[in-house]
Each structure stands twice: as structure tokens, then as C-alpha cells.
């Protein structure tokens, strides 16, 4: 235990996700002891982020205006929507430079045991976006775990009633790995999703 505001700073830092008491203490002493550490800049940024950043009214991604940069970009294709769980998934897919359509962030995955059902996600907003007939493909990019797969199952069943083509991201062997080390579930998925080799 430290005195006064140092302990308060450690306590506040410790409330952040992924930061335990030791990490909080280390960050606090870095701030206190390091000469030239721009505390003002950090403080201003925290205030600015808290005040300005919101969620895109169309796709649910983080944005600093009403619409996010991707939804505002006229070069993006409007005919496909990639459905993800969280804004950080958008960033992960953007890093691939393989996809040039739009996104839709659900805000989580279906998990009845945690009390999260279809009404708790942005599924209704997705259906509304599809109603005008412009979107020609919905790509389900939810996490390849149990809740993500269940969400994809639910959405594919829902979207089937709307007559829109739905695809799911492939899952299988990681690039750069050895086959012998793959677990049976992943390897089974890789077999299910195998494709013909073009000659």
C-alpha cells in the first residue's frame, strides 16, 4: 500500500481489463518516475477519446463522427457486408487488405448461459440494412468458437428467409504450422472445408 494519490492511481489503473495489481503498480511508477513522460498529452487523449469516440450509426464500428471511416468511404463496395462480433475484429480483417466491402458489428455473440439472446445484439439493424436489396452477399466472420458458431448458425437461418447469399469464413489449418500438431477438431474442419485444386 502506498500513500494518497499514488495508491489511487494504482487502484484506477487496476480497474482496466487485463491489468492486475502488479502491472498497475509498474505503470503508475513509470508515470511518476520517468522524466519527460507527457502526462498532459495522455490526459488530453483520454478525455478526447471519452468525449468524441462513439459507435457508427450504420455498422456499429468505432467512429469519431456519425458514420465510421469505412462506411463513409465511397470506394468501398456496398454489395457485401462482413458480420463481426467486435470492432477489434474489423481491424483484424482490414489488416489482410483482402476485403473491400462494408462491415456490421454485432456487439458480441449469442450466449444464452450469459443471458445474451438475439435481441441483445445488433441483428435487427443488420436485417434493416439488407432490406433494400443492394447487398448481394453477407459474410459471417464471427469467432470460430462455440458462441461465434452458434451466432453464425442463427444468422444463416435468419438470412435464408431473406433470400440473400450467406458465406462463412473458412476455418482449418494455420499457415506455417505442421499437420501433425493440429488438433482433431481443427483438422476435421479443414477436411470439411477442403476445395478442389485448380489446374
Amino acid at each position, binding site marked *: 500500500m502506498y500513500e494518497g494519490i499514488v495508491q489511487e492511481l494504482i487502484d484506477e489503473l487496476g480497474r482496466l481489463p487485463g491489468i492486475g495489481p502488479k502491472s498497475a503498480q509498474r505503470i503508475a511508477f513509470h508515470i511518476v518516475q520517468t522524466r519527460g513522460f507527457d502526462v498532459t498529452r495522455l490526459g488530453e487523449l483520454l478525455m478526447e477519446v471519452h468525449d468524441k469516440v462513439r459507435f457508427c450509426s450504420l455498422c456499429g464500428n468505432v467512429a469519431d463522427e456519425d458514420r465510421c471511416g469505412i462506411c463513409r468511404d465511397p470506394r468501398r463496395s456496398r454489395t457485401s457486408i462482413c458480420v463481426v462480433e467486435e470492432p477489434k475484429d474489423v481491424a483484424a480483417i482490414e489488416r489482410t487488405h483482402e476485403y*473491400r466491402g462494408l462491415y456490421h458489428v454485432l456487439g458480441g455473440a449469442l450466449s444464452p448461459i450469459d443471458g445474451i439472446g438475439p435481441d441483445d445484439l445488433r441483428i435487427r439493424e443488420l436485417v434493416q440494412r439488407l432490406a433494400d436489396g443492394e447487398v448481394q452477399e453477407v459474410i459471417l466472420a464471427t469467432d470460430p468458437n462455440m458462441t461465434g458458431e452458434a451466432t453464425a448458425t442463427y444468422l444463416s437461418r435468419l438470412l435464408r428467409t431473406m433470400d440473400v447469399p450467406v458465406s462463412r469464413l473458412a476455418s482449418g489449418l494455420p499457415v506455417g504450422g505442421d499437420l501433425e500438431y493440429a*488438433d482433431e477438431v481443427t483438422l476435421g474442419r479443414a477436411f470439411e472445408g477442403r476445395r478442389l485444386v485448380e489446374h
Partner: protein
Amino acid sequence: MPTYRDEAVVLRTHSLGEADRIVTMLGRRRGKIRAVAKGVRRTTSRFGSRLEPFMVVDLQCYEGRSLDVIQQAESLGAYGAPIVADYAAFTAANAIVETADRLTDEASQQQYLLLVGALRSLARGEHGPSLTLDSYLLRALSIAGWAPTFGDCAVTGEPGPHTAFVAQLGGVVADAVAPPGAPRLTPDTIALLGALLMGDWAVADAAAPPVRAQASGVIAAYTQWHLERGLKSLNHLDKGIKLDPSLRRRPRTEAVESALIEAAAVPTAVPAT
């Protein structure tokens, strides 16, 4: 550190730190197990897929101070994928594992085998998911010591049939002891409840949808009374999809068609950011 080995069903998981998970399991010999699975959220994890809910695993852990740590996991029953491919089965399986999580702390081989049997049945689609769930709930409560009675009066023992059902009294009761306003069950519902408790699947599978619905309501009330708290999963059981007619997809207009042609003509490369 002491290590142990057990067969276990994964009930639920919680994210921990950057890439770890806390996995709650029901072990065949040890009862409820809570253990940390390190690095399983990374796509390179070698046993992350085996520690998803509804999987049955052969497990090796070492005992920690507050949480055990999983060293190895080999899959014995991969029920996750077939369950998750059917949303109704997924919601039923969630209610099953939530009940198992609430109901069991001590080791109980009967509870373990019942849970594995229920998940296996859901994965194979042997019966309707709601029937499998209802049967599991009745039998799990029975093993825990709260067996309902659907024949003789639960209070006086007077031979049935009786139609008044009171969860607080333990099942159907004679008219003489039934409190005013106690729900009345049809003979078909009572027959279905008995069949679900005994595992008479010929009778259960033949039950009509309204009979199943009444039986499900009775079982949910009986379960939640004894567990003393509501089961979150029961509120999210699949009831099919009803799409708002106003959200039906409209056919593409000429304006949209021309917009699509224009969009297709735009260069495809997206600049790196």
C-alpha cells in the same frame, strides 16, 4: 505440484487476461472443476478447440492455490459442432450445462453420466431438443433428491391420478390439499411428464406440441423453484424465427441496379492504411 487426471464435460468458459480462459467443468470423479487453460484463445492453441462448451475431455491438471491449471486435454466426445449446427439444440444444451453448473458441486457419477447422455442425444438429434432438455431437468433434479411425483399425491400419498400441480409441494397433489389457483394439468401432460422422467421415449416423441409446451412450463417452474434462482438460458430457448414483414427484402430497383453497376466499375484496390 500435485497433478490429477479425470474425464470431464466442459460447462462454460470465461475469458481471462490476454489469451487465457477459465474453464468450468463437471468431472466424473472430482465433481466441479474450475481450471485455467493458458493461451487457448490464440488461433495457434493446440487444445483450445477441445475446451469449448459441450466437449467431453480426458483432462490432466495440476492443482493451484485458487484455480487448477490444465496441462493436457484429449477429446472423448466432440459434441460441440453438431449441437451448434442446430440453434434449438444449442439453446437447449446451454440450459442443460447451466443446470449442471448450478446443481452439482460434489462428485456425482450419476449426474456426470446423465449430462454426457443428454449432450450426446442432442448432438445426434435423437429426440426434439426441448424434450431432451425437459427429460434432463427432471432426471437431474431427481438425482439431486428432488424427484417430482406425477402419480400419487405428493403430500398425502393418495393414489392418483391427480391434476393439480404444485412445484413447492413436489408434484401433483390431491384436490383436498391443492391450494386455490393451483395449475391443472391434462392427462396427456401428466403422461408426458412421467414418460420424460422415466425415459419412455416412445410416449414422449408422440406427444403433441401443446402438450409438450405445457409440460415444458411445468418443468421450468419446478426446476427454478428448486434451484432458487432463474436459469438465464431458459429465457433464450429457441422458438423459431419470426421476421417482421416490414423487413422483408425488397426486389432491386433500377436505381439500385445502376448503382451496383457503377460500384462494380470502381477500382478494386483498397489503399493500405
